[in-house]
């Protein structure tokens, strides 16, 4: 087959992927089952902000909520990228969506493009919802062109550094039940990521642990984008550490991109009609 023809078939698959992403985003925003999953976190975050009103960041005069809102935005980006794909991937494997993709020429490419578009768009909607509903509770945020630009960059970098790793994780999980552990573990990690309180009040070993994961760094980046410069005193080393942020997120991206294609292929190889029938039987007898 000629190079142009190969290009054509891939382009058709990518285009189909975009339509898939758009269709699934629409389902996410209109079907009650999905919508609840998106609304609950936003409501919970607003509740947290309400409870924190009037409190200050330890050792400073700054309002705690002002620090927490950007951190929540950062956390939401990483959450979407890191813990979103695993449950989606196992669910799609167990219900036969992936097998259909495999039976279609370049169907896996279309599927992946669709998933990335869907996660990007739904995360974006969550971000806007948190920002808009949180803004009237929080004073002192800097929302200028610089902030807008940095947040956009952060969104892209955050997605690129976490989605591949999330896909790799999802490929390793054997069932939907197992993949539910991923968001759960993520929740514990965020406790040590300086989202709800400054990381500096934690024991040093927990600070180190938190700094391994992207939650802390994208949160830090969001604070750098939206907080007045003087609030840097509450951060480790009293610095926004932008270079370190890109390095850590870069490492996550590299690991993710190195692992994901192989693991995904391995998982896809195991898919067949009889594997699907076994899953179905398992659900019929065990219920999960």
């Amino acid at each position, binding site marked *: 087959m000629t190079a142009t023809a190969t290009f054509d078939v891939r382009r058709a698959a990518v285009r189909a992927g975009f339509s898939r992403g758009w269709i699934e985003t629409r389902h996410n925003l209109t079907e009650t089952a999905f919508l609840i999953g998106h609304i609950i976190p936003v409501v919970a975050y607003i509740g947290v902000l309400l409870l924190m009103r009037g409190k200050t960041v330890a050792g400073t005069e700054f309002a705690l909520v002002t620090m927490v809102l950007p951190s929540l935005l950062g956390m939401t980006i990483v959450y979407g990228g890191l813990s979103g794909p695993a449950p989606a991937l196992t669910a799609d494997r167990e219900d*036969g969506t992936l097998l*259909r993709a495999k039976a279609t*020429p370049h169907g896996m490419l279309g599927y992946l493009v669709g998933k990335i578009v869907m996660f990007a768009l739904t995360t974006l909607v969550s971000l806007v919802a948190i920002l808009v509903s949180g803004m009237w509770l929080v004073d002192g945020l800097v929302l200028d062109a610089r902030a807008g630009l940095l947040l956009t960059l952060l969104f892209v970098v955050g997605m690129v550094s976490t989605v591949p790793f999330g896909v790799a994780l999802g490929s390793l999980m054997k069932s939907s039940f197992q993949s539910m552990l991923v968001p759960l573990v993520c929740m514990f990690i965020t406790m040590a990521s300086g989202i709800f309180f400054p990381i500096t009040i934690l024991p040093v070993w927990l600070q180190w642990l938190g700094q391994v994961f992207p939650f802390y760094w994208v949160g830090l980046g969001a604070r750098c984008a939206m907080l007045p410069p003087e609030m840097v005193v509450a951060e480790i080393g009293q610095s926004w550490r932008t270079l370190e942020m890109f390095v850590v997120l870069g490492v996550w991206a590299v690991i993710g991109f190195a692992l994901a294609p192989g693991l995904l292929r391995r998982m896809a190889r195991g898919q067949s009609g009889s594997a*699907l029938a076994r899953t179905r039987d398992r659900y019929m007898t065990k219920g999960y």
Partner: protein
Amino acid sequence: MTHETSEIAIDVRDLRMRYGTKDVLAGVTFSARRGEVLALLGPNGAGKTTTIEILEGFRTRSAGEVSVLGVDPARGDEAWRARIGVVLQSWRDHRYWRVRELLAYSACFYAPYSTAGVKRPWAVDELLEIVGLTASAGEKLLALSGGQRRRLDVAIGIIGRPEVVFFDEPTAGFDPHARRDFHDLIHRLSDFDNTTILMTTHDLDEAEKIADRILVLDGGRIVADGSADRLARDLATTAEVRWSSGGQRHVHATGTGDPSAFVRELMMRHTDVTDLEVRRASLEDTYMALVQRAESGRSSGEGTRHEAEVGKGRVQS
């Protein structure tokens, strides 16, 4: 066009599949010409699904040679994939998608594979009409009945106008009406589009209705290959001869398929034979016996086919 029809679409030689120490396929050999409809018949656990999944490229074989449209499925690329149709049994995937939406999405992938001879993909609305889903085009998949979902599975499987289509138990869960529509569709695909079709089923009646040729798989081997008539001769290993003589009614079951020799001898030895009856076991009887054997004792394995030599001439009053 003659070379086209005589071309081999599927070629399987000495296919073997082993899981641990268990041979699921112990040397399967068959081939299919273009436009031929083949039914792979056999009891549960005979290796039908394993065979079809190897041909679909979804499973790696242990040994043997396999070629589908001239390509080894284990090495089939996406261009090969575009010429193959796999009809999957949907369960609960794409629940919130609408029928037309999913079919149109699936169709997108095939457009670049259109050639002067074969326009790909099928027009979505035309195909919906053919499988009888026009009225449900706007429905969500979760609102479809089992039969409607299966018809959508078929539509998705053939949307790219494949040259070879694989169906694994396509009519499980169909009502009689849907079943007949499905048979019509199969005939249409093979007659008008020269599509090669391989389907698995454990329903003999269905295999007889649809297939040009039936392959019976038992214990990992092809035990019969041919038209329904030929199968009846190949598989029917027993025949019953009944007669009256000396005021008594006699029954003899012959071990071989041809009872002529026994009858000749009988007539020469006894001159008072009356009410002579020779009855071949029907294809259905034989197939049922095969299924029953497979179900009652998988372990007996070897020689399942020949142990059917029952009864050595008993007398019945």
